[in-house]
């Protein structure tokens, strides 16, 4: 499940790998998210990077879930 790259386009930044506190500030501002106190930004950034790392790890596994039909977890 690796992203395909089109010839001639700039290579996309690794998914969230290099996300910074400035990136989070910009997203909060542009998307109108709940403001993050400056003192908290490093911890928030840690969580965000961990989440992106998890998503990268899943993508790297090659498991394809696009066709999976979901249901309540207890149903077959």
């Amino acid at each position, binding site marked *: 499940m690796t992203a395909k790259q089109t010839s001639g386009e700039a290579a996309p930044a690794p998914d969230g790998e290099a996300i910074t506190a400035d990136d*989070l500030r910009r*997203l*909060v501002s542009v998307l109108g*998210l*709940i403001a*993050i*106190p400056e003192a*908290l930004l490093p*911890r*928030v*950034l*840690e*969580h*965000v990077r*961990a*989440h992106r790392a*998890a*998503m990268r*790890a*899943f993508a*790297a*596994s090659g*498991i394809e*879930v*696009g066709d*999976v*039909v*979901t*249901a*309540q*977890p*207890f149903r*077959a």
Partner: protein
Amino acid sequence: MSGAELCRLSLADLAERLSRGEVSPPDVVQAHLDQIARLEPRLNCFITVCAEAALAAARAAGAGGALRGIPVAVKDNVETAGVRATGGSRVLADYVPAADAPAWGRLRRAGAILLGKTNLHEFGMGATNLNPHYGPARNPWDPQRVPGGSSGGSAAAVAAGMAPAALGTDAGGSVRIPAAFCGVVGLKPTHGLVPVRGGIGFGNPTVDQIGPIARTVGDAALLLSLMAGIDPDDPTTVAAPAPGDYVRAAQAGSAAAEVRGLRIGVPGEHYFDDCHPEVEAAVRTAIAHLEGLGASVVPVALPDHAALMAGLSGMGAEALVYHRRWLRERLEDYSPPAQARLLASQFILAADYATALRVRRVLRQRYDAALSEVDLLAAPTVPVPAPEIAVAEAEADLPNLSRNTSPANRTGMPAISVPCGFAAGLPVGLMLTARPFEEATLLRAAAAYEATTAWHRAAPALATP
């Protein structure tokens, strides 16, 4: 019988002595209130103790009901009519629900008396029970250590004889982790078996469950049998396809003291990784004991487990939706770790969440495949013994305590933790996991194990005056 002796009895023993008139409901309630008065300064298990109301209810206890006159503690994120329910938070410090959560209401109607509301990790969002608003609950086996969480107050209270049984909630292991760390029994039911309506901070309605914490498998079975069943106002509840007689299953396992014909799978992936050597030894000895009772034990494969667990990361978005109403205006009422976790979930993409829902289905299929070959999975509930509070406060050095418990929440499967030994002088839990709605199988096996071992009878030294 002394008060201290009353505080070590199981629900079943208490019910029998009450029915024979050997003790009265006020005797039983007073004994536990005395134990709370003695140990609460050291263990901090309760956010609210309902002393006067509990004694009044005991004096008024009528005839009948499986739990008539028996005090039960309830985690403080379960709504209790007329008694504040804080969720372990400052946000809801003064919240007094008008009605009982159905799970607790069913126990109350069976005669249970609310002894108090137990301490928990803030909004249930953590596995240590370090609570900045109400102080940490402490492990009765070593008060310098965490009791586990988030239902730490419930498990510590039961282990210390401050309550004969308690309710906990479990979104990632919050019943089973503290049960393992405190040396008691904790059961997470199949998602949909017990109503979750009236659960506070249940930001993850697809994984949260309310479950019993008790000193015996039979007691857990009794509480489950009373709580299970459809709630027309709770869309998560479903009719169990094979409703079990949980009490009878536990009794049968205990009486037979064998598990002939049962197939137990031991996962080759994930569950034993980086396990504390004494934890692993205790759990493998327990599995060998079950084999000695007649089970066939085989290895099972759970392909792609680590990748699938990683793919569930987007589930964190569910909690944000619950808390968003307060985060903008009352952010300072959350602890910094809770603030950071919730605010970070703003950056989970919708596609990550949609992916997580699909990944969960695949993970469930993997477990279905494993459980088509065996009846139960066996593993350590937590791969390490209870950490010191100081280590837990440092966070960075803390291992992932919910690593082994969270798959059952993600897949909806039932799982139970039973005491199976000690590591570094601290209790170890054996976790058994079954197919959905096969709690009876879990309870039968757990009861047979319990009947042929003595771990569940061990009590922390401070529990006895």
